[in-house]
């Protein structure tokens, strides 16, 4: 039996005349080879488009019964599981947050008053940026640093009822760091700042009005994110003036916090127009420290340790 089978197989092989697939890398003339390669690419692309169109047609023909579109896999929706993700029903987190250092703001006991300052001897760009930041944040006061220590500024700020201290740091005359310290004993966060674009550098930037803005905080979902989000919310007063249509956005995506400042307009029932106003910048969290600014002896609640923590591209902390 076995021998017979073999024979039949051989016969079949002889019957089927196989044309070897053209192996482009075997072509020795470079010009011809590259031409053949381009041809192959073109055909592949054509096939792909054809296939996509066919699928589209099929879906249209099926109408409602069509299988749902596949969701694209991104590093955000395949995020590594984080057990500190806050569940809104969580009682303990609610209790913790109701009594934390920012609670007095959220209970409407304090009105934010912000002190903005820079590093010693700031560059022109940093100065301009601070001036714009002053315009964006209501009830904020810009002071020159005058080489004062932050630890000496804090008691002075406290005596003048400031609730937050903002320090813009720079490197090579480009602003690259932001320290926000909540007063009197609130946490201190240190951000890396990048992609600063002033209002003058934005195309078709609008004129700013003095209305109190609305705030949007996007994707601050973990326990750490909650703390940071609450700190950022603390900078702006309650009760936005809605007729000003000003909105400040802190959008967290992949641990980068994007700051944008817009004015919106409802064109009709469906369309909304946006006009960008203030500066643009991106923040990335470096440390969250308990207590007011004390980088040497303060206790850190969270420190970004690059090589130890960044084990996966799909792992995020905020």
């Amino acid at each position: 039996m076995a021998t017979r089978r073999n024979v039949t197989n051989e016969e079949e092989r002889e019957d089927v005349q196989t044309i070897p697939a053209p192996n482009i890398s075997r072509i020795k003339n470079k010009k011809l080879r590259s031409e053949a390669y381009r041809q192959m690419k073109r055909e592949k692309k054509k096939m792909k488009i054809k296939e996509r169109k066919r699928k589209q047609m099929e879906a249209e023909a099926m109408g409602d019964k069509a299988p749902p579109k596949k969701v694209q896999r991104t590093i955000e929706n395949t995020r590594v599981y984080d057990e500190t993700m806050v569940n809104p029903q969580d009682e303990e987190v609610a209790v913790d947050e109701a009594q934390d250092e920012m609670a007095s703001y959220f209970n409407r006991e304090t009105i934010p008053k912000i002190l903005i300052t820079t590093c010693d001897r700031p560059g022109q760009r940093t100065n301009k940026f601070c001036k714009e930041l002053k315009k964006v944040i209501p009830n904020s006061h810009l002071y020159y640093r005058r080489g004062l220590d932050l630890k000496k500024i804090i008691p002075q700020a406290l005596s003048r009822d400031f609730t937050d201290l903002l320090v813009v740091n720079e490197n090579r005359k480009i602003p690259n760091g932001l320290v926000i310290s909540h007063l009197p004993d609130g946490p201190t966060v240190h951000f890396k700042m990048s992609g600063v674009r002033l209002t003058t550098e934005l195309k078709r930037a609008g004129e700013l009005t003095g209305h109190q803005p609305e705030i949007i905080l996007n994707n601050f979902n973990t326990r750490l994110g909650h703390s940071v989000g609450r700190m950022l919310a603390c900078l702006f007063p309650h009760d936005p003036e809605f007729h000003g249509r000003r909105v400040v956005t802190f959008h967290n995506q992949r641990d980068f916090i994007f700051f944008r400042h817009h004015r919106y307009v409802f064109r009709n029932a469906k369309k909304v127009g946006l006009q960008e106003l203030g500066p643009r910048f991106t923040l990335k969290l470096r440390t969250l420290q308990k207590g007011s600014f004390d980088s040497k002896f303060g206790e850190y609640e969270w420190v970004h340790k690059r090589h130890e923590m960044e084990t996966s591209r799909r792992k995020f902390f905020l």
Partner: protein
Amino acid sequence: MAEHKYNVFVGSETGLLKGINIVRSSWDNLNSMEKADREKEICAMCWNNENESEICVGLKNQEIMIYDIPNKAFSGNFQFQGGKEKLKNVAKLNENIITAVDSGVVRVWKGDEITSEINAGQGLCKMAQDKSQANIIGTGGKENDLKIWDVNVPEKPIFHAKNVKNDWLNLRVPIWILDLEFFPGSKKVITCTGHHQVRVYDPSIPQRRPIMDIQFDEYPLTALSLRPNRDDQVIVSNTQGKMALMDLRKGQVVHIFKGFAGGIRDVQCHSSEPLVASCGLDRFLRIYDINTKQLMHKFYLKSRLNCLIFANKLSIEDEGQGEEKESGILKDSGEEQAYEADHGDEAVWNKLKVVQTKTIRKQKRQTYANETSVKVKRKTGEKEDSTERKKLKRNKKTNKSV
């Protein structure tokens, strides 16, 4: 199992006491959520009795509560007058409770009465009790160097440390003790400071300065714990979330434990198992194996954590009966015990084995002696060679002169 045993107890900043079962990797809040209040932050904990069935919990509002583990309830509490100072530590002395507040007042309470009071000086950060001698306590703090007291003699400390010599700029070295511990079985004390030093003091010798001074990293060292059954290794941790195993003989870091995100508030070693637990501001309780340096367990406990205690009496094996054992080491020891219990006669054979090893040793000794004799011979041979060479040299010299 109806009864839920806990291996680790953790006190949090929200005033919640948490019990953690390592084997089941589960945890519970032991007091109700409604009572959670930052004013009742748990500052310190200690065992209330020898068999570890009650915990003494010291709160921020100068209250001490006793948690009864079998009854799962707070059995008693008493308010001690410490003024507005922050409670730093509690300890147990027979039936009495010792409290320490940051103004430096250490009091011994019998019920609601003060039996003795020690003034350890302003800026107290830590009070620790000698485990082998319960009436001996050590205190230290900011600009408040180590003092060792006998509770029965509150007037004068037994030992008063002296600051180290001025630095190379002839400036005074600041003092800031953040944690201290007594070496079990000896009078020595180990401290860690806010200026990232680890120091060992020996009160039994006349020298009042530290007998050892090691530095680790650049941030304040908040907690330390001596490795049990080995007095040459200590685990220290700092405010940036670095926990290191240090060797006290060489004064070097042996290992840095990985995985922390925030500052560590408390570190404790298990008295019999090779486990170390740490808790801190990143709201995680982490338990490492000291031998393998592996992270064994990690619990997210939702609040910032202040202090922890290990249930030493309740061994992890007891808890794990009928369940999967945690680590290979634990399993092995458990099996051995069971084996011994089953085969009582084995002991006799074990003894015989000892004899056998002795004979082996003798053999070894003999072989060793043989080897050494050979070595000696070789050495003498070398000597002979060298003498010959010298002779040759002399000859050469003579030749030259000729």
